[in-house]
């Protein structure tokens, strides 16, 4: 259950400042590591700044979502949610410069299929990369398998992610049972789904509990439809007396709404610029990235193939 899970104990943070602090730390750590290993030919401007990393991450999160939505066989929502959460958690403590988000994104999706018991073999998985040749797909499969263990380790082995979809269902059932004032809760469902998808693209999953996110989604779509659900909260959730908790709840709901409104997809030009920088970093500090390989891929043929393939893959009309 959520209240005794590792998700609640370790992966719910107080506010966005804490998150940005963690990400800055990761960025600085990576820069320091690169500066230590490579003595010359390096300037500060070559590294990605925080906002550039943000832009890249948002872009790749969207890509991950699209990949999962285009997945055959159809991926259940919880698997998608878990994959996105893994991606987000991983880049909380690691920098984009160290691990290319393209591989990590696929590894997150693969791991989430396994954890959520959505059985997909690795060959079936890479067959969904429609723009790759079969040889390329195999290469990707190998890379995924290499990075899988690293991903699990960086998640601190906390693999169970509580998504807001089941709480949403539970709240809808509760509404239907105990709140007859609201005529047709099913009509809210589409808006709720949209809100939840939007929320998964933001940091909300790291700041609030899934039941709070679900409640906010429902209230949001109800207010959009012009229905007032305050009485539900006070009556049915038993908060008539408890003013403090009530105000806190409203506060967090407000914050969530602000965060979702603030979210915007990064512009393509920005993304391309950042991508080029990233590619250069990854290509130059090849020794950097090859150290991260768990198995000793010593032959240069494999290593030099990787950047070439990635530049092929990063075309924008990919995957959709």
């Amino acid at each position, binding site marked *: *259950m*959520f*209240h*005794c899970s590792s998700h*609640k104990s370790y992966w719910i943070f107080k506010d966005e400042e804490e998150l940005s602090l963690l990400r800055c730390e990761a960025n600085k750590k990576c820069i320091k590591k690169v500066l230590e290993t490579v003595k010359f030919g390096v300037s500060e401007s070559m590294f990605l700044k925080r906002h550039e990393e943000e832009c890249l991450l948002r872009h790749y999160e969207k890509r991950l979502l699209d990949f999962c939505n285009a997945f055959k066989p159809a991926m259940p929502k919880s698997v998608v949610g878990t994959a996105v959460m893994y991606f987000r958690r991983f880049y909380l403590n690691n920098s984009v410069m160290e691990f290319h988000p393209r591989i990590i994104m696929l590894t997150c999706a693969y791991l989430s299929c396994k954890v959520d018991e959505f059985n997909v073999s690795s060959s079936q998985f890479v067959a969904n990369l429609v723009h790759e040749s079969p040889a390329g797909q195999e290469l990707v499969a190998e890379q995924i398998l290499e990075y899988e263990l690293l991903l699990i380790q960086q998640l601190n082995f906390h693999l169970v992610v*509580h998504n807001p979809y*089941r*709480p*949403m*269902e*539970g*709240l*809808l*059932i*509760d509404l*239907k*049972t105990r709140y007859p004032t609201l005529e047709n809760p099913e009509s809210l469902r589409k808006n709720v789904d949209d809100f939840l998808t939007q929320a998964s693209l933001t940091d909300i999953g790291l700041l609030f*509990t*899934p*039941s*709070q996110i*679900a*409640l906010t989604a429902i209230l949001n779509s109800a207010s959009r439809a012009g229905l007032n659900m305050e009485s539900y909260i006070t009556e049915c*959730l*038993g*908060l008539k007396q408890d003013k403090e*908790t009530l105000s*806190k*709840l409203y506060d*967090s709901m407000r914050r969530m709404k602000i965060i979702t409104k603030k979210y915007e997809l990064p512009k393509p030009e920005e993304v391309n610029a950042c991508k080029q920088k990233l590619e250069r970093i990854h290509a130059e500090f090849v020794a950097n990235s090859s150290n991260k390989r768990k198995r000793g891929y010593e032959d240069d043929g494999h290593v030099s193939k990787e950047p070439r393939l990635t530049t092929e893959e990063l075309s924008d009309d990919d995957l959709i």
Partner: protein
Amino acid sequence: MDDQGCPRCKTTKYRNPSLKLMVNVCGHTLCENCVEMLFVRGSGNCVQCDTPLRKSNFRVQLFEDPAVDKEVEIRKKVLKIYNKRDFDFPSLRVYNDYLEQVEDIVFNLTNNIDVENTKLRMEQYQKENRDVIQRNKAKLTREQEELEELLLLEQQGNEQRRLDVLQEEQRQLQAKRKNKQALLDELEQSQLPATILLAKHKARSAQLETEIEQQKQSVKPTSLFSTGIQQNQTVSLVPIPRIEEVLYQYRPLKMDTYGPPAPDLGQLGRLGYLNHVRAALPQDTAGGYTTAMACHRAMQDAFSGLFSL
């Protein structure tokens, strides 16, 4: 055992598996026939090591490796002299030292190391401890006698039982024969019709059979348990000491869900939640699934962590 051949005639062992190998004090083997042939005069030299040997020293080989047999012979001889027992010594350490001495001697004699000195040491020991050796010899013989007596008793008991069983069987056979004979006599002499006589005979023989069965099954009542305690004996056990401790009180587990309480699994149907959940198909319920389970889980998830901040 067949892989060893007689070193002299070689083939004879394979051809004749019942042939036995004999070992002598030098540790080399010879098959029976060769012994006969070589030691027809009573003494001669060993084929392999040329040591002077006597025919009487040949013993049937018990172990595959003749060296082992040799060592066994030597050990027997040494232990005849070095026959102290563990209670003859003041401490375990001294006893172990003594045993080590014995092993050294046996080893030396078996591998022909320093034979002269070892023999001298043995003689010296013998002279010094003559009376101890005698006493131990007597003790040993006494113990052996006791063992032999027990063995004898057991054998006698077995024999007795066997004889009893045999006698029983004989008696039963006799009874059966008598029965048959009685039938024949009756058929000859009596006036009754043959069918009645046959029926009577059958009844009698059935009775005999049941008697035999009963006798076989009747177990002689014993007076001893297998552990050696008499059956009527009451064994007094030491009463177990009572340990007074604080009694365990069950307290149900309290879990903080950080949210409003979720309805109980049993209440869900009554409260009307199940109307809004997809009903379980027959194939689902076969595995033990009920609609209430999914509903309960959704409700718990909806309320868990709602107020946590």
